[in-house]
């Protein structure tokens, strides 16, 4: 890499040629503050709107201050990051941003986790100098995401995520001047738009303009109701991220403490979504093998590639954008919904509790799961299989509100029978994990031979689109993997054009998979955090004795006692689903 010499505050540095002042400064450990810039290094995503103007610096020889995020370093450039002029300008810019921002920090959803608040704190703002006109937008509540545009500072990170990374196109900047705001088309509610609830806009929003719909209070009320049996399931990615909310380093597994905290909170049974992930592999794997065998036998009507269906953001995406292909994804429900369906039948029967008295709560890294559990097809007589979904962030808040000292908790174990899981299940939380888990089981069923090396390194990583061919004892199985909906779109367009060579494709809506979900602790633009979480899940997998879903004793027992075999009639009724055309087509009349 070519480097050039520059000076920042009279110190000499070598920085990469062609980099901006902001990136160059960061590379040598000099912090230049910003409110809009975002660079997700491992995900190849840069958001550089030069919108907030907080990052202004002085360049010796130039009359005006320059935005560091949009100014390229030139050889010999002398940059001043600490002068009174720079500091005062930044303060003025911040004062102007604050001039029309609500000051209800004490009761704000992002209190303590807000980039604007911490910027004001760092810059020592003690008075608001300018009183600007306050906007008064209607608060928009969808099943998963809340929009409060009075709190938008116009950084437009959400637009990059929604339009560039995810290619969903639900949000756009509309109107102009003071009236300019981020909104769906025609300012319709998010619920009526093409939003997939992936929550990536929420994950990058610096303020409380975009937040999750908070269900903690509803869950607290149910926990206090003696007539209800309240059970909880926790998704794999939660254990690798929850610790961050309590000061642990990213990538610290806190499974035991999380389980202990949930028990302290009063959940009657603490179960694991990993159990249902193993169940998903049984069903999805069986479906894959069924399609594959028929394909290899020359059946031309069979739909391949099989697309995974665990991710509700992805399901929403193809229902909105690729409804013509809705018969290609696996019909297997997501682990969350499989858990709910089994809990409210098999488990409710086992403990002798009526369906309506059993409450199923999910802890998810995901906001789309909040919507998923409200879908009509996952209800029986109006009673949902999963009653409430809390994000990882909401669980952290619940624990803090209850006064539980997370750090001093002794690790606890999951309850039985829906707490037992394999290593294959825990890697469901990262991109590549679902398909690796499926391969471990499908290989053994297909070849009728034991798989000795269960680690498929070739399926792992952070690259947006990955592919690999796995040798099923002489039969090459082509696997595609995409994370981020924009990459899913690319693979899907290939499938639509009949150019896809894959037998199976795993898709996760969020960058990194569930570890980077819209409900996770905020990464504040640091993609190293995602990598640390990913590493944690693979090490969790490695530490397990059982690493293949079909070897999970509780799953074997569930089929023996209740379901029969994968894809049985009962399994179809409880564990499979169908998809809808949600393209917002307009009615065309004759004249």
């Amino acid at each position, binding site marked *: 890499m070519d480097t050039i010499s520059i000076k920042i505050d009279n110190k000499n540095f070598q920085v990469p040629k062609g980099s901006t002042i902001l990136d160059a400064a960061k590379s040598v450990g000099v912090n230049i503050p910003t409110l809009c810039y975002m660079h997700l290094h491992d995900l190849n995503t840069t958001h550089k709107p030069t919108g907030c103007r907080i990052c202004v610096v002085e360049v010796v020889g130039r009359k005006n201050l320059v935005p560091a995020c949009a100014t390229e370093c030139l050889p010999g450039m002398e940059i001043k990051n600490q002068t009174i002029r720079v500091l005062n300008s930044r303060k003025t810019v911040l004062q102007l941003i604050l001039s029309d921002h609500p000051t209800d920090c004490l009761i704000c959803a992002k209190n303590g986790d807000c980039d604007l608040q911490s910027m004001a704190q760092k810059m020592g703002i003690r008075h608001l100098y300018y009183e600007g006109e306050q906007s008064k937008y209607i608060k928009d509540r969808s099943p998963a995401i809340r929009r409060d545009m009075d709190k938008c500072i116009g950084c437009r990170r959400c637009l990059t995520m929604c*339009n560039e990374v995810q290619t*969903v*196109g*639900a*949000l*756009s*900047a*509309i*109107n*102009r001047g003071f009236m300019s705001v981020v*909104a*769906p*088309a*025609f300012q319709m509610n998010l619920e009526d*738009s*093409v939003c997939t609830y992936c929550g990536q806009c929420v994950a990058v929003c610096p303020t409380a303009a975009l937040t999750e719909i908070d269900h903690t209070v509803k869950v607290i009320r149910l926990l206090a109701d003696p007539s209800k049996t309240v059970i909880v399931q926790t998704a794999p990615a939660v254990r690798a991220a929850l610790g961050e909310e309590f000061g642990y380093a990213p990538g610290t597994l806190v499974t035991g403490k999380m389980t202990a905290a949930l028990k302290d909170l009063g959940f009657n049974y603490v179960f694991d979504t990993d159990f249902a992930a193993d169940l998903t592999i049984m069903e999805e794997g069986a479906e894959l093998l069924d399609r594959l065998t028929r394909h290899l036998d020359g059946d031309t009507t069979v739909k391949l590639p099989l697309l995974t269906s665990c991710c509700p953001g992805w399901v929403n995406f193809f229902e909105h954008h690729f409804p013509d292909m809705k018969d290609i994804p696996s019909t297997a429900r997501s682990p969350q919904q499989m858990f709910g369906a089994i809990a409210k039948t098999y488990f409710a029967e086992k403990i002798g509790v009526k369906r309506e008295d059993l409450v199923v709560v999910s802890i998810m890294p995901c906001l789309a799961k909040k919507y998923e559990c409200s879908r009509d097809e996952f209800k029986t007589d109006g009673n949902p299989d999963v009653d409430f979904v809390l994000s990882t962030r909401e669980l952290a808040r619940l624990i803090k509100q209850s006064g539980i000292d997370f750090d001093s908790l002794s690790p606890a174990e999951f309850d039985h029978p829906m707490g037992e899981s394999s290593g294959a299940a825990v890697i469901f939380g990262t991109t590549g994990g679902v398909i690796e888990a499926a391969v471990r089981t499908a290989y053994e069923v297909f070849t009728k031979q034991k798989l000795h090396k269960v680690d498929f390194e070739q399926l792992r990583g952070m690259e947006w689109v990955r592919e690999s061919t796995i040798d099923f004892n002489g039969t090459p199985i082509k696997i595609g993997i995409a994370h981020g909906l924009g990459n899913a779109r690319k693979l899907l367009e290939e499938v639509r054009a009949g150019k896809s060579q894959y037998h199976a494709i795993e898709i996760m809506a969020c960058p990194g998979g569930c570890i980077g979900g819209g409900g996770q602790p905020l990464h504040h633009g640091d993609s190293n955090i995602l990598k640390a979480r990913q590493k944690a899940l693979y090490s969790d997998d490695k530490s397990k004795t059982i690493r293949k879903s079909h070897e999970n004793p509780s799953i074997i027992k569930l089929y023996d006692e209740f379901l029969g075999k994968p894809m049985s009639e009962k399994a179809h009724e409880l564990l499979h689903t169908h998809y809808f055309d949600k393209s*917002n087509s*307009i*009615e*065309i*009349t*004759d*004249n």
Partner: protein
Amino acid sequence: MTICESNVAKIEAICKEFNNDKGELISVLHKAQNTFGYLPEEVQQIIAKNLNTSLAHVYGVVSFYSFFTMTPKGKYPINICMGTACYVRGAERVLDEFKEILKIKVGETTKDDKFSLSSLRCVGACGLAPVVLVGEKVYGRVTLDGVQEILDEYKEVSAAPSEY
């Protein structure tokens, strides 16, 4: 949302004229507005689909430029010049009078679709300030009392359209 087949064909033809290129969105919108007089939701939706871009993006552009409108213009579009000369000679009061009588705001259309109200910058007839346009017809040195008189001219047309 509904739209008739022949209008869909018109929009598709406009998009095709610009090679369904999303970079030509503004040109497409411009032409569509010339064709339909305004840009209702249905039109934007078909444009978004043909240019392979999001509806939110199309709406973003439509709502950004004041030239684009989503409300149909009235049968008699009224334009009040708010250029400097007209402004200092009382254009704002004239505008207020129109608003008061028609009970609409700038950018709106009366319920009977007869009049719509908008303002513009300098029509180049500063000697006649303040200037009002109704359709193509120019009214100069408009006074507050003159506002009702202008509107009355169009009342007759509407009351007895068969005479024309």
